[in-house]
């Protein structure tokens, strides 16, 4: 983080979303700068996923404004978000089990030949290239992803975001289903993507990982924002207190 903060990459202002009577997201404002990782924390059902879905277009917001590079944008569908360079890695893996890795990676953005037919060979070649970078152990290119392990599937989902040069990456518990080694792989990847200047929202229940990977953390409770802190200025216990009690740590409270 530099001191001379310019325009935020993403700014969410007063976001609101209710399901029936439940205020899943209630007047939450957070922002994200290029090359920054912002952790989004909170207990189960705090509204983290819903907040991120409002940004990724998977849910339509009831109120609030979204700014990208300081310009207000309207995101109503996943396609809108994609067009703005926002890629999401979902908590519930958004892969079509019956298709292979390449088909999933290019889903919705297929490469086609001059005659408009799918160019599966080229898509597979591109998939091999990107996977060689992200997960060199990956081998199963022609089988449906249903047969892959959780980590392999996750790397397909991440490859999708990386391949299409996302500027803003939303990772909703990207390591929830992964083993130790794959978790480390994802962590390394986050560091690498951050260095490339991407902005990343990371939802994770592992406070320790958040302390290590994130620059700032925004904590939610019952749909409301408790506060946003720089992770270097708080302890893990402070973060836990914010999550459980919903109060800012004393040395930071105004």
């Amino acid at each position: 983080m530099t001191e001379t903060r310019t325009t935020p990459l993403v700014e969410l202002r007063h976001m609101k979303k209710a399901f029936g009577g439940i205020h899943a997201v209630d007047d939450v404002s957070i922002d994200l700068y290029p090359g920054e990782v912002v952790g989004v924390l909170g207990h189960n059902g705090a509204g983290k996923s819903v907040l991120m879905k409002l940004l990724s277009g998977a849910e339509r917001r009831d109120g609030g404004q979204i700014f990208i590079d300081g310009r207000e944008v309207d995101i109503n569908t996943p396609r809108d978000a994609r067009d703005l360079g926002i890629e999401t890695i979902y908590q519930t893996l958004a892969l079509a089990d019956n298709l292979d890795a390449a088909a999933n990676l290019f889903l919705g953005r297929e490469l086609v030949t001059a005659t408009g037919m799918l160019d599966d060979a080229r898509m597979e070649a591109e998939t091999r290239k990107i996977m060689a970078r992200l997960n060199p152990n990956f081998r199963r290119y022609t089988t449906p992803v249903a047969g892959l392990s959780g980590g392999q599937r996750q790397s397909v989902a991440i490859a999708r975001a990386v391949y299409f040069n996302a500027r803003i990456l939303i990772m909703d518990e990207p390591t929830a289903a992964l083993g130790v080694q794959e978790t480390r792989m994802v962590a390394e990847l986050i560091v690498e993507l951050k260095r490339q200047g991407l902005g990343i929202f990371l939802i994770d229940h592992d406070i320790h990982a958040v302390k290590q990977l994130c620059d700032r953390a925004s904590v939610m409770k019952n749909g409301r924002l408790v506060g946003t802190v720089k992770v270097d200025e708080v302890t893990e216990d402070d973060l836990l207190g914010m999550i459980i009690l919903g109060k800012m740590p004393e040395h930071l409270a105004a």
Partner: protein
Amino acid sequence: MTDTAPPPAVPAKRSLFAQLELDNRLLGMIGAFVLVAIMFNILTDGRFLTPRNIFNLTIQTVSVAIMATGMVFIIVSRHIDLSVGSVLATTSAVMAMVQTVVTPDWLGLGLNHPATAPIAILAGLAVGVAIGAFHGWMVGYLGIPAFIVTLGGLLVWRNVAWYVTRGQTIGPLDETFQLFGGINGTLGETASWIIGALAAVAAVAALLNDRRRKQAHDFPVKPLWAEATVAVIVVGAIMGFIAVLNSYEIPTRRLARMFEARGETMPEGYTAAYGLPISVLLLIAVAVVMTVIARRTRLGRYIYANGGNPDAALLAGINTRFLTVKVFAIMGFLCALSAVVASARQTFHSNDIGTLDELRVIAAAVIGGTALSGGIGTIHGAILGALIMQSLQSGMAMVGVDTPFQNIVVGAVLVLAVLIDTIYRKRLGVRT
């Protein structure tokens, strides 16, 4: 990206058979079909595998097979269409009325005008697409389950058909139109051979093209001998099929009548074969187009993705509602196409046309390996499924099994096929 791809894993030494890379599931179905055919051939003292019976079998299969290809897309999308037999009836009724009332009387073209068949068929296809799209809209946009929409459709369209014709049998149909029925429209020997040769060339070209595309990206390809073996099998199958159809000769009396109709007399000792029926050619065209849609187009990719994981499709920015409309519209189109074949085959439109076809069509798709849980199914599988069912039915009829028992067997086979499929998938470790 300057990185180069890792060298694809070198396959371990494999058996010669494995190197052919044939589709096991397809082989299994062909095996089942061959078994059924041989069994009936023995039971009927060789009457089952005569050119005449094979010819009949193919033309009897066409109508259900055409619809089964559309049902694959429907079931892959996790929907069902119970209305296909009724939609077939409505489109058939519309086409029958167009060619017996609208064109001859309203448009004043008289009977058997060359424009009659095209006008009638276009009208039928338009109605089929409209009905299908309407079903798809109710499923996709209004969120009514396809089972309910098409169960309603089953009743509605069967009886709309009745009102279109006032419950009458309409016929005889236009002469050109009747060419699509099977025996009344065949290509004859020479044209059949030409079509067969063209198909063989196209198949080999497709194999080569596939190979070249893989090589362009340094993917492993089959050894040349394996590729050649597959090509020989494919070409052999195509030419063998044409040879069989070309050896079914038109009975002398029928030939004589054909010459009489043209005001000529038949030369002594003249013979001619039926050759490839136009209806079968139509089915082949449908199979090719549907396979290309399934494998090579975005539409097909989205249909399968949506069936595999609707959420993933939605999050990938696919308009899944409109996709549903398209899938049902394709089904409606194919119902109308089947209606052409079915009504042309009986040379008239009858009220009961297409009755119970929904069950045959769904059974064909399912026997052909389409999974009701969605996301899985092939076009060629569904056609083979239709062929297997028709073979069972015809074979049992030839052996003299009574109709109730025929239906019992077909029902049991359906359940058995799905059981085998389930076990096969479990063994492969594919989650469904």
